[in-house]
């Protein structure tokens, strides 16, 4: 029993050990290459432990954490994301002469927090994971605060994220407190029984629920809690933006979906209504905001708002159709979105370093002819984000439509179509700019030869986008089995 428990928690343990190792090594020898290598190695080792964990699933490791196929899937995803971020970070910080090594420690702790969040089955572990990730992120966002040219942006982004995130953490926590006050339990799977026992619940309880929803919505950057997204995306160093867009979103989504389904909150009329409004608003406003955006990182930020809005459609659908299909869809869409975002930020990262980020639309002019490989990756990503067949994004969109049709969410589907139509414009605009001949070739960021790591990330993610788009059947089978837990 105990040994099983240890195997069960192996991933978290392994991550913790790696974190400590990285930290200790840093204390003795500051070497950027070594530390980043160690980080990647540690993350990789943690990832591989899933081979051992798989056979003992599912298992509840204390009240706080549950390790099942669902959480394992998201943990793996998170760790893959972290590896990607680490690979992108190395070239990015290479020319940054101040201490780079702490960044990897922060990355490790943030990853640990994210994994805990994805596995959490209790509000305490929820808080623990969320804040571990959050606090690490504050520092990560503001990390290159000393870098010469772009110093003010990381600071601004860090402060903004810190204050707003702390504000919403407070809101979430107060919401948890209210809920706890009325039902007397904080374990997710105990909530339905407690609700039953508590009988009719007043508005204060509902306010608590809504405050929790608001907190999750903030992390998922859903309208009306989206407003921090573009500034933080823009100000943060590219690898951190990638982390925010992928790991942070995946972890939060994993726990939110679990909470909604396990606690049956999704069946509350109030929750579905609020989610519907947020989904529609996110889809429309996110796309509208991105329309003429000149900064590619902000563009991705706004498009992430829209995409999370799309995702919400599948979640809302869970109120009417069996949760399994919804979980399957959410997992697939998240996977697809994860892969696309990582790939997209890898491209921006390939063009940037801590001294100068090439994130203006104009910087991409003629990229297709200067560096066709990098731009082909970005084109694939953009087409996938637009939901064009042959890419993972299409299968994702297919899931949204399928679940939407099955639960007859005609309003949201209409919004989805309108939003996607607007979305096409800015994705295509970026593609178009890349296809045009450059006005002058002097300012050519892609001329720098790139380290293997970035290429590896781009290649792996692009391959994943296309594989998932052309032959999704194996992945769908996997997701189907993990969803059976719900």
């Amino acid at each position, binding site marked *: 029993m105990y040994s099983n428990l240890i195997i069960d928690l192996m991933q978290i343990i392994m991550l913790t050990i790696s974190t400590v190792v990285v930290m200790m090594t840093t204390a003795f020898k500051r070497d950027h290459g070594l530390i980043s290598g160690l980080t990647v190695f540690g993350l990789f080792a943690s990832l591989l432990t899933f081979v051992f964990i798989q056979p003992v699933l599912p298992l509840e490791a204390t009240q706080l954490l549950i390790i099942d196929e669902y959480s394992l899937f998201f943990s793996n995803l998170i760790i893959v994301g972290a590896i990607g971020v680490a690979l992108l970070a190395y070239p990015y910080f290479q020319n940054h002469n101040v201490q780079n090594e702490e960044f990897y420690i922060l990355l490790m702790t943030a990853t640990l927090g994210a994994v805990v969040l994805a596995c959490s089955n209790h509000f305490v572990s929820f808080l623990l994971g969320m804040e571990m990730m959050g606090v690490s992120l504050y520092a990560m966002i503001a990390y290159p605060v000393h870098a010469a040219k772009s110093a003010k942006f990381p600071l601004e982004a860090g402060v903004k994220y810190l204050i707003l995130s702390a504000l919403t953490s407070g*809101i979430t926590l107060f919401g948890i407190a209210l809920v706890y006050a009325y039902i007397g339990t904080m374990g997710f799977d105990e909530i339905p029984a407690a609700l039953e026992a508590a009988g009719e619940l007043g508005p204060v309880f509902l306010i608590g629920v809504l405050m929790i929803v608001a907190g999750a919505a903030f992390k998922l950057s859903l309208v009306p809690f989206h407003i921090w997204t573009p500034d933080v995306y823009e100000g943060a160093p590219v690898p951190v933006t990638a982390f925010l867009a992928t790991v942070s979103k995946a972890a939060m989504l994993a726990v939110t979906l679990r909470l909604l389904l396990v606690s049956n909150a999704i069946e509350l009329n109030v929750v579905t209504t609020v989610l519907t409004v947020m989904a529609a608003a996110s889809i429309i406003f996110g796309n509208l*905001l991105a329309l003429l955006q000149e900064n590619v990182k902000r563009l991705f930020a706004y498009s992430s708002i829209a995409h999370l809005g799309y995702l919400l459609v599948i979640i809302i659908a869970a109120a009417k159709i069996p949760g399994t299909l919804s979980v399957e869809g959410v997992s697939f869409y998240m996977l697809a979105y994860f892969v696309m975002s990582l790939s997209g930020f890898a491209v921006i990262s390939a063009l940037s370093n801590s001294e100068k980020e090439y994130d203006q639309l104009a910087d991409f002019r003629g990229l297709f002819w200067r560096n066709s490989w990098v731009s082909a990756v970005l084109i694939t990503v953009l087409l996938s984000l637009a939901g064009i067949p042959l890419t993972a994004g299409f299968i994702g969109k297919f899931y949204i439509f399928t679940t939407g049709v099955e639960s007859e969410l005609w309003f949201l589907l209409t919004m989805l179509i309108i939003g996607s139509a607007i979305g096409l414009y800015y994705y295509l605009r970026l593609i178009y700019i890349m296809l045009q001949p450059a006005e002058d070739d002097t300012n050519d960021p892609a001329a720098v030869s790139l380290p293997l790591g970035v290429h590896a990330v781009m290649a792996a993610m692009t391959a994943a986008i296309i594989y998932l788009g052309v032959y999704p059947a194996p992945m769908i089978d996997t997701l189907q089995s993990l969803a059976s837990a719900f």
Partner: protein
Amino acid sequence: MLDLLWLVPVIPFIGFLILTLTFGKLPQLAAGIVGAGSIGLSFVFAFLAGSSFLGAEISSYSQTLWTWMSVGDLEVGFTLYLDGVSLVMMYVITGIGFLIHVYATGYMSGDPSFARFFSYMNLFVSAMLILVLADNLALLFMGWEGVGLCSYLLIGFWYKDPNNGYCARKAFVMTRVGDAFMAIGLFTLFVSTGTLNIQEAMLEAEAQWVVGSGVATAVTLLLLGGAVGKSAQLPLQTWLPDAMAGPTPISALIHAATMVTAGVYLIARTHVLYLLAPEVQYLVGVIGAITLLMAGFTALTQSDIKKVLAFSTVSQIGYMFLALGVGAWSSAIFHLMTHAFFKALLFLTAGSIILAMHHEQDIFKMGGLRKDLRWSHALFLIGTLGLVAFPGFSGFFSKEEILASAMENHDGGYILYLAGLLGAVMTYLYSFRLYFLVFYGKKTHDGHEVMGLHLQGPLVLLAIGAVFAGFIHIPVEGVFPEMEEHHPSVMAQAAMILLPMLGGLLAWWVFVKGKVDTEKLAGQGFGAKLHRFWFTQWGMDWLYDKIIVTPYTWLAEVNKNDFIDSIYNGSARAVRFCHEVMSETQTGQLRWYAISIAYGLLLLVVLGVLL
């Protein structure tokens, strides 16, 4: 030899292909030989097929080449059909066509686009033969459209002058208006009788339709629409005078002898349907009568030699329509044939005069040419006598038949007869006006007859035809219902012959003797107005321009940028505007961000509590 019938339309088509695909590389002599020779060869085969048809003493012969379309209940074969009427037409087309081709080798010699000219001509003959030989209306329509196309191409043959292009387009579009009606007529006929085969459809119609029923009226009216378009009858006649912009042999072949008479052929071909719709048949006669008068008056005011002839053509086709209207089917075809001879002769001779006058077409700049242009004078006189139906000349026999039939016709034919008679007077008047103005009076310019076997040879042959064609018996008995023999009284016959001659006398009196100052008459007061009214074909061009052309071009110009487009562009602008409004919310101010989160929470709570 009948099974060689298919060669008749095919040989000119091969000629067309040869001339076209060499893209003007062929030397002029070779092009001439191919161009005229193909028609000659076609005539030979037509003659062979025709004589064995006549020899076989059958009423009709049909030859199916292949199945053109077979869709559901629609069965259209690529089938040729020969009977008396199409035989006459085939002879006219290949025979007169051949003569005109030969003439054209002289007329067009030296033109840089010599081969192109003959390629179009050959295509025309081929299409015209398909028109008359078609056994079904779809195939007929193919020839019908084909001749229209060639007409367009040949009117605009000298493409450098934009006016020629305009005239060509006008001709094509106006006839196409008629064609659209005709197409609808075909559909109606098909839906009603289940076939497009002309003979079968007529049998079906006879069996099914009630005389004067709606469907009969509709079909015949629609077909009539096609016919008036092609044959330049009211109200679609205004294109024909403009069509004179083409080279003169074109005017002779297409706009006098063959294509413009296709409408007459169509109605004669489908006469059974018209018999089932007597009102429409009478309408055909009325249209003919009005057209022949209108064109006669207009011809009187024209100064361009070819336009006078063009209006005379309109007028003569009016006679044919009149004949159709009173049921004198064979007279119509008869007049068609004689008209082909004398009108082709007139046009070609006019062409010779124009050549001799160095491309001058204004008759007021001619005059006194009878000495200089002896050949032309003689030939033109023969043609004119044919046209005015001078006793003994070909036109006399056919026109007299028509007028006699009209007179004897019981239902309202009398009015038509009177119109025809008046028209005959007019014919004399304008024909001799033309003749006198060109060949008599004071000589202003010198003319030099251009001589050559290929010019005068065909003219002489046509002149022989113009004199003697009236004695030809056309073999149409089996095709049309028997007509009772007309025996108009001596008085009536005398009136028919003598009364029109007054017109000739008047012309002589005015234009040779100079007893009336025509310029003064037409230059002021009521005379001027009348002159203008006649000259502009009763203002119909003006009317069409005002009610169709101008509004359409205005509408097109107004909506040049497609207003539907602005709906889409407008919504794109609206989205852009929303974007701008939305991005105002991203102020970058942290406190506003915090407040927005608080508002967001409030919104959620309000929403939640309200529900």
